[in-house]
């Protein structure tokens, strides 16, 4: 079974996001693997462990630092790594989906995993657009995948805590919300060993597409509210909280 995982390298929001002009100041920010892609790699490896096959991880190299991410994925159980030499830190999800689809096209994928969304664009478009470019069905918000033959049983999450079980036929693109198990830990000794021996296939970006959006302005949000610390004994604090709730018409 050919399992493909499309990943995204995104600016870290662990720190203040520096803005320069109408975009992120990409030189002053660390890049990290999209959190949902960590889940999606784990889910892909779990499927491989259950039914056999190979896991190929593919992503756009935004700032020339994707190797470390790919090495980690290989140490966690992926078999092949492919990087698209995009070298454009501002490439949006539409562009990335196009490049990814061109790279994945020749892989005869049976199932393609993508994180359901990423914290930079937050549009959840990579998965659906990949499916459209590759002419495959898409199911998103998925929290578990079990493959049997040429079909799979997936759990999809809906708002309000509702879940549904779907039987889907392969090939298929799956947008992963959460892996059925938390992502495994790859010991550094293993990652380093992989880094010394693994080969990463390089692919040039192919295809041009526009999201049709123009960025007019980017600015950090203005702080409007603030927290008030209430001092005093627990009785005094409780009394003040009651007073506050009453004054705001909440009690």
């Amino acid at each position, binding site marked *: 079974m050919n399992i493909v995982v499309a990943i995204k390298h995104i600016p*870290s929001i*662990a*720190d203040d996001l520096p803005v320069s002009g109408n975009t992120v100041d990409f030189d*002053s920010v*660390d890049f*990290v693997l999209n959190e949902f892609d960590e889940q999606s790699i784990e889910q892909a490896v779990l499927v491989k462990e259950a039914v056999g096959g190979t896991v190929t991880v593919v992503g756009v190299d935004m700032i020339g630092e994707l190797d470390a991410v790919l090495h980690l994925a290989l140490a966690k159980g992926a078999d092949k790594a492919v990087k698209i030499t995009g070298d454009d830190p501002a490439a949006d999800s539409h562009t990335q989906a196009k490049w990814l689809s061109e790279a994945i096209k020749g892989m005869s994928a049976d199932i393609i995993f993508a994180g359901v969304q990423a914290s930079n664009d937050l549009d959840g478009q990579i998965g659906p657009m990949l499916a459209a470019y590759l002419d495959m069905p898409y199911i998103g918000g998925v929290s578990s995948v079990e493959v049997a033959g040429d079909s799979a049983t997936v759990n999809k999450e809906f708002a309000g805590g509702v879940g549904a079980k779907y039987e889907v036929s392969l090939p298929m693109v799956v947008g992963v919300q959460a892996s059925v198990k*938390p992502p*495994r*830990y790859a*010991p*550094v*000794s*293993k*990652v*380093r060993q992989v880094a010394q021996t693994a080969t990463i296939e390089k692919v040039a970006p192919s295809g041009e597409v526009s999201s049709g959006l123009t960025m007019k302005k980017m600015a950090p949000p203005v702080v409007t509210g603030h927290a008030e610390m209430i001092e005093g004994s627990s009785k005094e604090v409780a009394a003040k909280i009651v007073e506050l709730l009453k004054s705001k018409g909440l009690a």
Partner: protein
Amino acid sequence: MAQKYEKAIAIEKDNIVVDGIDVSGHWNRMFEQRVITEYTPELIEKIADIPNAESFANCYQCAKCVAVCPVDVVGNYGPRKLYRYAQTGMDLTEAPELWLCTTCANCLRVCPKEVNMVKIMPAAREQAILDGKFVPNELQQAFENTAKSGNPLGQPQRKRDAWIQSAGVPVPIIKDLGRKVNVLWYVGSYPSYHPRGIDAAAAAARIFNALGIDFAILGKEEKDDADSQRLAGEKGLFEMMTEQNIETFNKYEWDEMVVTGPHELNAFKNVYPKYGFERPVVHYSTFLARYLDQLKPLLQHSVEKKITYHDPCYLGRHNGEYEAPRKLLEAIPGVELVEMQRNRENGYCCGGGGGGMWMDSFTAKHTTMRLSEKRAMEAASTGANVLAVACPFEVSRFTDAVKSTGNEHVDVLDILELLDKSMRGE
């Protein structure tokens, strides 16, 4: 593996001489291997077969360790118990018990058989990690942060020296200085990033300046020592950080390294020599105690506090420094120093060592209260209104613990902060 034991039978020698004394007799079998008949040795052997964990098999169940184990005070633990659990079917590499030891070394201090949990635990944990067994999530996060960002807090490397702004005195970066210094001050991750850690770093900078110490820091080139990650089982991560750190340390000329934290002291002084780094490293308390004569006239403001001092395991038991911190505290005018019941060699662990710093939620599920909470209560029971510490892990741990145990009246302060208070007055 088990064959060794099946063959073993109690042997009564006809004659046995111990230390030149003939002790022949039917009872002399006590000098021979005991026969295990009811329990299987496999799971003990499984641990003892891991390199560096051999001494696990030495245990003869005397239980001296249980009496001093800080985890047993808040749970059901202790090296002797681990051995017994293994005898009765527990695979340590898969049990929650694997992650509870803080490597505080109090058991080793009293163990007549030298069962060394400080070596056993890291080895067994490493095995579990390499075998893909359960690793607490919070701990994984700290490992990943260290590998990715160079510190367990996951803060950006380029902000490692941002704390300097709060010092209000010059803090030279060795790279910019471009010359040899007497003292290379390794600040450490928590003093660089943690809000309460920064307070201690800023205090240290002011003290060094006041004493006229010729010092510099590594700034953005400094990375975590990763000693606690090693003790938590991530030897590969430790070795990667060690290679990077040694390269950085050796890039510059300096006479002596001063570290803010005992864990860094342990790494650089006791472990790095195995990786080819052998240069003088001291904890700040040892270093400043040398300057007591110059320091005393600077301590102009009285600090009218009753202070109790918590011995960090990695400064005290692991590195033998008990007096320097106390001398510094006693040098502060107005201070009344009182001791907790468990002090010096028998100091009670704060729970932060051996990776415990990053397993609070996990540990909480397997203990009745945090070790730091137990210790905070002990500190409060002395009547002290300040709990003085000398390890960057402790300020945040004990600040939380005094709150959660209803002892907010006890201030948790690093010795550096107390010296700084006395120097500047507040």
